[in-house]
């Protein structure tokens, strides 16, 4: 793929969208350091993604991406058609894209493929996670011809996520982001307000605070 001026600086903060999923499998037992069940492998990928989100050291992020990739491969080897493994593999590819920007295009396309398969297998997984994460990738990735970004397709995916789980704040936040990017300020504002209301209706938790913060930020623009 040919690149253009400054596309070298277009490294995405895709981890942010890759780590939106919030499945909460039980913590790994300390006596079992290597994840081996599907549930444990998915939990390990999620933990790597969360750690990567707050990790300033690029080398550590690359190690986390590699570890998540190994866990995703192991998960797919066990259950190749399972939504959890396909979804986990997509998240691992998001970490890979961030850790290795030169290969980001390939990783993002692989991510979209895995998300499409996860959505086919179980669209409701992780509160409509496959459609939601797909939306965020399409909305945030560099657009044609530099990358797979496609805001219209991203909006469609976000609408699917909201249709499946209308009260889950990250789905509404993804839709609001897409609307804002297409210039629909009124629609974006309304949807950020819905996301804030939905988050406020949830029990107090770290995730809720983050969603409220994101909704409030969106409402300021």
């Amino acid at each position, binding site marked *: 793929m*040919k690149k253009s*001026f*400054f*596309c070298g*600086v277009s490294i995405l903060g895709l981890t942010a969208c890759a780590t939106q999923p919030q499945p909460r499998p039980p913590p790994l037992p300390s006596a079992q350091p290597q994840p081996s069940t599907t549930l444990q492998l998915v939990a390990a990928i999620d933990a790597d993604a969360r750690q990567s989100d707050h990790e300033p050291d690029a080398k550590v992020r690359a190690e986390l991406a590699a570890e998540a990739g190994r866990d995703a491969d192991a998960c797919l080897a066990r259950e190749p058609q399972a939504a959890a493994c396909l979804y986990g593999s997509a998240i691992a590819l998001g970490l890979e894209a961030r850790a290795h*920007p030169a290969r980001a295009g390939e990783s993002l396309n692989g991510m979209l493929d895995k998300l499409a398969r996860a959505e086919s297998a179980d669209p409701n997984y992780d509160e409509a996670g496959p459609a939601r994460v797909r939306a965020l990738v399409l909305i945030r990735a*560099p*657009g044609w*011809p530099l990358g797979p970004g496609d*805001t219209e397709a991203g909006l469609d995916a976000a609408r699917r996520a909201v249709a499946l789980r209308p009260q889950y704040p990250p789905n509404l936040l993804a839709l609001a982001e897409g609307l804002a990017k297409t210039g629909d300020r009124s629609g974006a504002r309304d949807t950020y307000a819905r996301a804030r209301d939905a988050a406020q209706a949830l029990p107090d938790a770290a995730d809720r605070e983050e969603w409220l913060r994101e909704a409030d930020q969106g409402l300021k623009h």
Partner: protein
Amino acid sequence: MTTLLAASLATLVFCAPGYPGGAGDAQPLLDQFAAAAAAASGWPAGSLGAVYDPTEEGGLAKLASSDAVLAFVPYPFYVEHAAQLHLTPLVQADMADIGPQQRWTLVAKSGRLTGPASMPGYLLLSTAGYAPDFIRRSALQDWALPADVKIEFTGQVLSALRRAAAGEPVAILLDQTQAAALPSLPFAAELKSVTQSAELPVALIAVVGSRLAAPRAKALQEGLLKMSHSSGSSESLAPLRLRGFVLPQLPSRSVP
């Protein structure tokens, strides 16, 4: 005083409206480039900083700061703002994939546009749409756009192409990379290239006003020109998709 000036921090402002990427993502690459450029030019370590802004407004705001002595901008930005900012080209970027120059291509629905006279009422969309003077006087200087053609910036080129393919009165001005990728679109047969610009610079580094003393500017120019030949420097170029720099080769009517 001279020593103080030589050691003072000069800032290079990167601004690329319409291209993806955020300032936070770009900063480590810019820091690496600034350090390498300073070293290649014999400037004191740490005397050249760099900042990035992906928007025209943000870039202009950063360039208004007195420590913003250099601008690294796409040619459309240069044409649009060179007079206002008193930009003096120092070097021209030699891009890894397309070289130092590129052609812009006007695309519309197949069979709709036969010449400028068939464009009244059209909307022209482009990543360079923030620079209407560039579009009218440089990219389409041989295709006299009717006065009522509205020019708008878009970062959503794919959406714009879909609109044109669907038959809306929309024309899109594509840069060389975009035009080269056009045949890969599933609806490419619905679109047609109607005219193409002469070769124009892709991007320039320019001195802002008189903020950089001539000897320092000369040293920087020489340093930038030799960056591609030095292994240490070239490592900072590749992440920005740069092969190096050449002396500016501006068309005769670069600035209105």
